[in-house]
């Protein structure tokens, strides 16, 4: 699989299929990687590469092969920088978007940063602030990802890890981490949300933004863990992508 070198960042990515571009952000939180796509409820590249040009990438400093600085000042934005730089590198202007887990807040950040390029977005079991478990991301990352990233990169120390997590999950820690309610309320981009209900994928927050966004849809729920229900939800996703692909220039 190819790499794209962007300054000090080395991005491991996939570019498969043809048709309107679909940027896929794999799940797994900060430890996300394209490898997770085979272990979740459906593999988006398998599902959609027959009709879409599927672009995906390992998240910077996750369990995959994308590496670069850990920039606490631009915690969420550094991931968005990587995604937009990769699309530029591939000559892609407009695109459709599908984000799993951490891809929920990242989808919103892309819509915020590149409102004219994102024509529609699917959020699959999105993460978000959990008012009933407000430290869930700190607790789940400080030991696991935080240690792993120091093992992988000797120049990263514990203080950097803590500063990065603080910026990620407490900087704007009351909703989606990346955008506020006013942004969602005024965002006309079509969005489709496939809900989940675990501490890192809070149902309450996902439903709140789905109800706020003026052009949103939600899938059946529950759908995870049941292959037949996954197929029912996927037909909704296919219909949603097909309805919006004409907007991709």
């Amino acid at each position: 699989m190819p790499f794209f070198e962007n300054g000090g960042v080395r991005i491991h990515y996939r570019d498969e299929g043809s048709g309107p571009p679909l940027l896929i952000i794999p799940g797994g939180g900060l430890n996300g990687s394209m490898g997770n796509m085979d272990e979740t409820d459906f593999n988006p590249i398998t599902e959609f590469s027959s009709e879409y040009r599927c672009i995906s990438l390992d998240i910077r400093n996750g369990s995959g092969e994308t590496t670069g600085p850990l920039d606490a000042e631009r915690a969420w934005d550094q991931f968005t920088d990587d995604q937009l730089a990769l699309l530029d590198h591939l000559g892609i202007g407009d695109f459709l978007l599908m984000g799993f887990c951490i891809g929920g807040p990242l989808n919103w950040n892309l819509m915020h940063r590149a409102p004219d390029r994102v024509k529609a977005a699917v959020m699959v079991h999105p993460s978000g602030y959990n008012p009933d478990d407000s430290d869930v991301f700190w607790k789940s990352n400080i030991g696991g990802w935080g240690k792993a990233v120091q093992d992988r990169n000797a120049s990263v120390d514990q203080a950097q890890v803590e500063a990065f997590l603080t910026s990620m999950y407490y900087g704007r820690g009351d909703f989606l981490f990346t955008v506020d309610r006013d942004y969602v309320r005024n965002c006309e981009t079509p969005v489709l949300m496939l809900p989940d209900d675990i501490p890192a994928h809070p149902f309450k927050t996902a439903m709140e933004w789905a109800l706020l966004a003026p052009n949103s849809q939600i899938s059946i729920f529950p759908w995870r863990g049941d292959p037949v229900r996954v197929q029912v939800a996927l037909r909704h996703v296919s219909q949603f992508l097909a309805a919006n692909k004409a907007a991709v220039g």
Partner: protein
Amino acid sequence: MPFYENGSVRIHYEERGSGTPILIMPGGGLNSSMNVLRNTSPFNPMEVFSDEFRCITLDIRNSLAGQSTGPVEVDRPWNAFADDQLGLLDHLGIDKFIAMGFCIGGPLSWNLMQRAPDRVMAAMLVQPSAGRPGPDNWFLDTYRESWAPEFHKKRPEVSAEDLDRYLLSLYSDNADFVFTVDRDFVRNCQTPILVMPDDIPAHPYAVAMETATLAPNAQATFFPWKEPDDLLQLALSHARAFLRANRG
């Protein structure tokens, strides 16, 4: 409002809007009538979708709450309803259409997909009625107790025995499912379907979701969806996207 006459059958119907035709079958069981769409339906599709579709609705034959009348076809009740629906569409010069059935419109939509598979472009099943597993038959019990005596009072020429046979014809087959077709039919039905489930005794959630998971080209909305209004609007966005995707 206009009537369509076919021999001894007289069907009260209404049309609104232009575009791909949607045949809207209101809820209310055997008392299905277009009044239900205006009064107790979670949304009125004649208002919601007539901005971009040709919406056609009708009172079901012999509804006690409507104005459509005709013989009580004791041995072929479901097909008599389908005759009326397809006859009305023929009368209006409509070949292909989208079926949208509320409540009893669920079984009616399945019957149309069986009778006219090439004409039904897609079907939307809203709070569809169905039987459920077990010895109790909500429909037989309820209609024997309330609808049949009331109907007999209004139309004494139809005997109580015939009305009971009529109810048995309606609700004995596939009584743990959707009455008009069996699971094999649903499993092989390629028509695009959107199920908007409900969860009351006459509209069992489990059967609605069973059809959505059996049918190879089916979707279902988030549940619950009827209220509050912002949740209803989300479900209607899904419904509109489904109708647009299948309007041909």
